[in-house]
């Protein structure tokens, strides 16, 4: 076989696959969103954004991302620096910390439901300590704060691992000599962290943040398992439009709004953490 054509033959299946199941659905979803019975219009978007639930679900989604992502970033950075110098048991600790990576968001929601539900472990602990004398129903609309905290904790528990893995891989790429040199010049561990680790970790940080932020806007099953209808988010609105209201035009419109927010944040993160051209590790 002609070697010149071989690479193209090898990438052909993926290209076809992605055109059919990635690019083409984009065209379709845009078409669904902008098309109504009376032709092209913004009607679907007006309907969707005019609905009373839209501002709440948008606010919930953004608040959740604003709380969860920074906490995860700090936690993941802390964990990654902790394992960097670990000698004994590094593999075991890393395995334990990456377990949530394989756990679905639905399962994570169910796990935290076991803690927060009325006969759950949090109530059992509180009554065991004598704080409450009978189990209180924590996940109701009277306690929006607790619902929010439960969902945020479940998200932090579940998805910190993905940032951790990316950051650990990134820290592994930083040459040890930089740290040794800094130590010779008497830099404190904190100085070493802010002057070496953070700047050199920028490519990994941007990958981790992009992936994590996009996942944060996609939050769905965790919310569904813990909050149900108490805590509407954008993704659950999409789901409702598709299934409860059987309005696929509106569902597509919300989907496009989620896409737009995701792309805006991706661009923002890539701009903020851009590595100047030519400056590589």
């Amino acid at each position, binding site marked *: 076989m002609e070697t010149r054509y*071989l*690479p193209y033959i*090898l990438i052909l*299946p*993926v*290209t076809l*696959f*992605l055109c059919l*199941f*990635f690019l*083409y659905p*984009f065209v*379709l*979803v845009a078409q*669904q969103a902008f098309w109504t019975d009376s032709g092209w219009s913004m009607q679907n978007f007006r309907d969707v954004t005019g609905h009373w639930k839209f501002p709440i679900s948008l606010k919930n989604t953004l608040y959740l991302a604003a709380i969860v992502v920074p906490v995860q970033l700090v936690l993941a950075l*802390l964990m990654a620096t*902790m394992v960097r110098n670990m000698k004994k048991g590094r*593999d075991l*600790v890393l*395995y*334990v*910390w*990456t*377990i*949530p*990576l*394989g*756990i*679905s*968001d*639905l*399962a994570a929601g*169910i*796990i*935290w*439901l*076991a*803690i927060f539900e*009325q006969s759950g*472990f949090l*109530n*059992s602990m509180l009554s065991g300590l004598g704080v409450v004398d009978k189990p209180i129903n924590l996940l109701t609309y009277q306690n929006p704060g607790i619902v929010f905290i439960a969902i945020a904790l479940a998200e932090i*528990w579940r998805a910190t691992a993905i940032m951790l*893995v*990316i950051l650990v*891989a990134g820290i*592994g790429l930083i040459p040890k000599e930089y740290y040794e040199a800094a130590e010779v010049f008497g830099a404190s561990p904190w100085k070493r962290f802010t002057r070496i680790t953070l700047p050199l970790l920028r*490519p990994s940080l941007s*990958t981790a943040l992009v992936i994590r932020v996009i996942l944060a806007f*996609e939050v769905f*099953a965790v919310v569904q398992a813990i909050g*149900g209808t108490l805590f509407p988010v954008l993704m659950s609105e*999409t*789901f409702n439009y*598709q299934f409860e209201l059987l309005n*696929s035009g509106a569902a*597509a419109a919300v989907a496009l709004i989620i*896409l737009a927010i*995701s*792309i805006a944040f991706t661009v923002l993160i890539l701009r903020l953490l851009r590595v100047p051209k030519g400056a590589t590790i």
Partner: protein
Amino acid sequence: MTTVATDTPMTDPRKAGRYVYAAGVFLLCAWVIVPLYFLLINTLSSPEAVNAFPKSFVPEFDLGSLTFFAGFAGMLTALKNSILVAVLTMILSIAVGAPAGYALSRFDFRGKEVFRMLILLTRAFPLPLLALPLAVMFIRTGLDDTIFGLALVHTTLAMPFAVLITFSLFSGIPLELEEAAWTLGCTRLTAFTKVVLPLILPGITASAIFAFVISWNEVFAAAVLTIENRTLTAFLLTNLDTSPLHLKFAGGFILVVPALIFIFAVRKYLFAMWGIANR
């Protein structure tokens, strides 16, 4: 843990620091494991114990909840569907993705950068949303509510990982090995099957397992695209408001078990996979 730190003489700050460090590692491990342990307790308790209050903090090793789960109408079919979709996804994503990974690592060709960008781009989008338009497309083509149709969507989710992981695997095998095989009379194909393939097989298995986990865990697309042939995640999600607690917990447990095993199986490759994805 803090009492240990205060018991020791504080004259040596390094020693105190080491205790704080160990306590931190321990606490973070507990943070991951304790919620999983709670789920285990609930799964291995009778339905009555799951709904009772207060909860015991040790499992009673009663299989009541799991038997209830197995006997619940449609649950075992959903479990079977989940496995089938995940296996199909695993096969499809490797079969389609691995050749591209090989091409990226071995050849310089025009459009290589564009192709890489397309692959990376797919990760920067909330892909499950694409299930919405695909639902319409699948009805037209007769793929709606089928295992195969859902596996195709899950393959799209797993594809970027399959390509990038196999790319990094192939890049780890020196080209000289292949060239040596060619000079000894192998063709490109036989050199690949006899020399390269045996070397990367463990890595390929790891990325296949990763694809399995992605499909096994996926909720949104599965719930949108299946009605009769629900997967386990879709089944649990759509029955959340009606199913009793012990059913939810048993279902959650069944979802978690393969994840635990698989992450353990691929732990060596986890960081190599993501390291290459950074560049």
